[in-house]
């Protein structure tokens, strides 16, 4: 409560302070791509000669409050021409919208985002990719994958082959808040991790925060990946797509009512398995391995002050092997948003979000041995966010959010009449959550900017549900009592304050120093003790046994641009401490276990590292080099004899090189090289014999390192000349994954040699190189 009072007090203080100042007026508006009507996120509005300026928010809106006078505004956005506009500010005005199109047509020099953003922004440990940049990233299997590209950034460790899990600054793959149009995505992988769920054709921007996560967001310890889809072309109908060996995709968009409303629908399907249908073997024809997904968006501009959006995502993966087994999983999300401009300085966004994840597995080994297993969770959130721009020194945002989640830890059912299995269902978990936040970006002077935010979350696990109490240690043998909770009866409440602080000191026009401190709480826990995000995947809320995990992170960095901002460089160091992190006891029994708390222990994890980044932004050759040195360890009482051990995704060195070269307007080549220290695994030190079987004795957890991981991919794009004159524009993309066929261990098995009977270690690796061809088009 004290926090609430403090929050409202500081807020009113800042507003009244503003109102008492001299006569000022506000310039506000939306910045759009003049060609498509698409709002541009993060476009820069600068007041020439003053150093004052702002950027557009997630909905393309900006607001600048200045004293009366005449100003020249410079508006720029990556890949578009910067424009200048003179304004006489005698009253508050709303600027006309389609600014960038006119200039682009008259071929003004194409400039980037605010060129020195790397240095001047208070944001650190963050990376933004715009639609234009995403399009230019190296394509693998014929498609650009945002997550794969994010894995090449400093501080993000690769998990290995075929894994789109993100391991950010020592965080696990369940510690990332991945949002698509504000809706959380609980599992971002397709096709056992070869693709991510994000179809790049539908994306407008992707922004990754490794630290300095805005107070508006919370709920995960390690990162925020904020992905926004495009709104759809407001001016004309268009189609974009690609036909490839592995998958095809198509996006259709256009105005419903010109300049007022638009739609976008985008779909993908892989069809590797359709080729199996051509097989002469009927059993092979029966195998399935595919995914599909659909993104859809509608947006309506009701009037200058009101706008609504509907966005949805639905995707499914199916992996079926003959009649023996089938697994299927997928996410579904839906978002409704209402943007309302209260006045020139106050922007409001109301969001209603639904997101769900489902997983199901069918096994059938003879009619008596057939069953189905399902698990999943669903979330509904209502959010109210405000942006308030009192003057050029302050950018204030605040808001509230409430969520309800339902977790289905597992349902097991026989699928034939004579199945030996009996139906078993674990009781659902339910939770409600309320969040409140306030954040202010305060420009103290030309050199110093501070962003301070505070987030408070109250989280409660509620009924209906079942819980167990124990005598002494939490073990199945020690169960004392079973408690049943009725609907919305409080089981356990948790909560806490999450301060977020970052500051920037501008040394000169080309360099700055930034520092940040972050506290994040995580109230939902992924129970999956395998490295792969599949197949076993179950979420549980914080309750009387699982305390919320807490991460405290400090980071500092030096940012420097060279050669008139053509090169961006940064060096960052961080230390992150995480408490109440979960790990699993040896031989944990997680499947349909109603006392899951007996299989899990909690303790501390910590990570520290150095991240170096150099990016070349302009010219025919662009790209980046990133290097990360980091160490991630855990110490959990009851696991590994209470001794410290390495997290299974700990890699000491990570190196990435991404290069894109445009030879001319017809040919472009891109490539990337990845190197990572081998990940730690558990391999046996000794063997024993029991009844003819060879058992193993393991040393400490994760005490052996696999060989280093390295790989190079190439992607070559040919754009025919005739494109220029035609409406139909096509291009060919040829890509090779793992060009030099590096044998990277995907996993290592202990095996017995069939001839000698001796024990061996067998590495499994993906076949390589994997070539792919895709024809991309737009009309």
């Amino acid at each position, binding site marked *: 409560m004290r926090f609430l009072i403090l929050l409202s007090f500081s807020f009113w203080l800042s507003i009244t302070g503003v109102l008492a100042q001299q006569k000022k007026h506000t310039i506000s508006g939306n910045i759009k791509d003049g060609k498509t009507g698409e709002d541009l996120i993060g476009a820069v509005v600068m007041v020439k000669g003053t150093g004052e300026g702002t950027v557009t928010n997630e909905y393309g809106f900006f607001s600048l409050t200045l004293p009366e006078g005449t100003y020249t505004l410079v508006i720029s956005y990556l890949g578009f021409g910067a424009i200048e506009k003179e304004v006489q500010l005698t009253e508050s005005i709303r600027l006309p919208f389609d600014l960038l199109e006119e200039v682009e047509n008259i071929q003004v020099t194409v400039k980037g985002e605010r060129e020195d953003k790397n240095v001047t922004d208070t944001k650190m440990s963050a990376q933004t990719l715009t639609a234009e940049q995403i399009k230019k990233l190296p394509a693998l299997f014929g498609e650009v994958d945002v997550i794969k590209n994010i894995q090449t950034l400093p501080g993000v460790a690769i998990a290995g082959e075929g894994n789109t899990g993100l391991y950010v600054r020592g965080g696990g793959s369940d510690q990332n808040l991945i949002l698509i149009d504000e809706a959380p995505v609980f599992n971002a992988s397709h096709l056992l991790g070869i693709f991510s769920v994000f179809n790049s054709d539908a994306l407008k921007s992707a922004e990754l925060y490794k630290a300095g996560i805005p107070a508006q967001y919370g709920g995960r310890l390690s990162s925020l990946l904020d992905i926004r889809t495009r709104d759809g072309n407001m001016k004309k109908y268009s189609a974009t797509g690609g036909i490839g060996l592995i998958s095809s995709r198509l996006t259709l968009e256009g105005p419903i009512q010109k300049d007022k409303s638009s739609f976008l629908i985008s779909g993908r399907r892989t069809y590797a398995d359709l080729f199996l249908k051509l097989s002469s073997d*009927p059993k092979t024809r029966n195998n399935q391995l595919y995914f599909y997904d659909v993104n859809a968006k509608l947006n309506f501009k009701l009037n200058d002050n009101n706008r609504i959006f509907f966005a949805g995502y639905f995707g499914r993966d199916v992996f079926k*092997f*003959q*009649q*023996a087994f089938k697994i299927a999983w997928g996410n579904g999300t839906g978002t409704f948003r209402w943007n309302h401009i209260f006045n020139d300085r106050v922007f409001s966004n109301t969001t209603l979000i639904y997101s769900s994840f489902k997983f199901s597995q069918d096994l059938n*080994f*003879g*009619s*008596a*041995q057939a069953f189905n297993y399902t698990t999943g969770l669903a979330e509904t959130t209502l959010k109210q966010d405000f942006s308030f721009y009192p003057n050029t020194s302050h950018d204030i945002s605040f808001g509230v959010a409430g969520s309800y989640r339902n977790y289905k830890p597992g349902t097991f059912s026989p699928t034939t009449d*004579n199945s*030996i*299995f*009996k139906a*078993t269902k674990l009781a659902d978990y339910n939770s409600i959550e309320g969040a409140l936040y306030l954040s202010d970006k305060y420009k103290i002077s030309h050199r110093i900017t501070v962003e301070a935010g505070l987030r408070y979350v109250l989280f409660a696990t509620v009924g209906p549900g079942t819980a167990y109490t124990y005598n002494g240690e939490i073990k199945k043998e020690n169960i004392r009592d079973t408690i049943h909770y009725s609907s919305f009866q409080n089981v356990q409440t948790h909560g806490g304050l999450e301060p977020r602080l970052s500051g920037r000191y501008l040394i000169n026009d080309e360099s700055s120093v930034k520092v940040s401190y972050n506290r994040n709480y995580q109230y939902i826990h992924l129970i999956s003790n395998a*490295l792969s995000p599949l*197949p076993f995947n179950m979420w549980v809320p914080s309750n009387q046994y699982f305390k919320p995990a807490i991460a405290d992170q400090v980071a500092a960095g030096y940012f420097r641009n060279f050669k008139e901002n053509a090169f961006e460089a940064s060096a960052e160091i961080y230390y992150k401490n995480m408490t109440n992190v979960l790990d*699993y006891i040896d*031989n*944990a029994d997680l499947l*349909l276990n109603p006392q899951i708390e007996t299989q899990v222990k909690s303790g501390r994890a910590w990570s520290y590292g150095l991240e170096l980044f150099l990016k070349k932004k302009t010219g025919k050759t662009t790209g980046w080099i990133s290097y990360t040195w980091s160490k991630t360890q855990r110490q959990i009482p009851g696991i590994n004899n209470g001794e410290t051990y390495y997290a*299974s995704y700990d890699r000491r060195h990570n190196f990435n090189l991404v290069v894109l070269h445009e030879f001319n307007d017809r040919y472009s080549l891109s490539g990337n090289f990845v190197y990572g220290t081998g990940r730690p*695994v*558990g*391999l*046996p030190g*000794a*063997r*024993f*014999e*029991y*009844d*003819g*079987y*060879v058992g*193993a*004795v*393991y*040393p400490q*957890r*994760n005490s*052996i390192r*696999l060989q280093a991981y390295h790989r190079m991919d190439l992607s070559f794009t040919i754009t025919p000349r005739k494109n220029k004159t035609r409406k139909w524009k096509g291009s060919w993309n040829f890509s090779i994954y793992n060009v030099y066929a590096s044998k990277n261990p*995907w*996993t290592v*098995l*202990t*095996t*017995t040699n069939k001839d000698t*009977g*001796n*024990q*061996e*270690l*067998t*590495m*499994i*690796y*993906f*076949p390589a190189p994997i070539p792919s061809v895709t024809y991309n088009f737009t009309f």
Partner: protein
Amino acid sequence: MIVTVLVTASCTKVIDVNLKDVPQKTVIQAEILIDSFALVRVTKTAPYLQNSPTPIITNAFIVISDDAGAKDTLDHIGNGYYKGDIIIGNTARVYALDVNADGKDYSATTTIPAGVSFVITGRNYVSAAEANRFHKEGYYPTIKTTLPPGETYYLFKYYKNDTLYVPKGNEGNIFITDSKFIGTEIDGYETPYEYQVGDVARIDIYRITKEGYNFLNDLSAQLNNDGGFFSTPPANTSTNFSNGAVGLFLGGSRETERLTIVP
């Protein structure tokens, strides 16, 4: 299972890794079955990749005793095996096993759960057209039984012409189950292995203790481990022995049925 499919689809290569040494441990494989004498084997662990056989201990001192005061000293009968000749397994008793090997004492206790009788009701035939990788062409004997209520644990062994069906080593399967997901009336449960006309299918069903199930379940997890990618991280087996020995003192009842496959 996913791994089985992916192994088929991917490439494999035997690699050389410097494994961590772990201290050598005593391994005890001990069982007392209903109506039988105790049988124990004592060996030691060996470095994982060396092809030397696991060392056998032939001079251990082993005593089995029950809660009625009976004692039986086991005699070495060769190849590290020790056998009793006084105490015969009985569901009413609690048994304690004391092993002294290389100057260290190890002990464990067990009970013997009552056996569950079953019948082989017939066999299902899977034709070549219906067969798949996990369900090959052939005849699959079917089992009918009624399980006792409560949490119970079982071990299955399948023989073809009185030879244990699968090669063991590191890749063999251990067929165990608990009653967690299984109904009490079982009718039509198929053997996991196929038989052909003329084969004698023999099925042994052991009802075992919880400790026995846990150990065999952990051992099975080791055999099927994929390095922690899809499976749980590899871990040591649990044991009911004290003092750091590896192994199990298993108590159980065995029921056996046979079926000669005819077309």
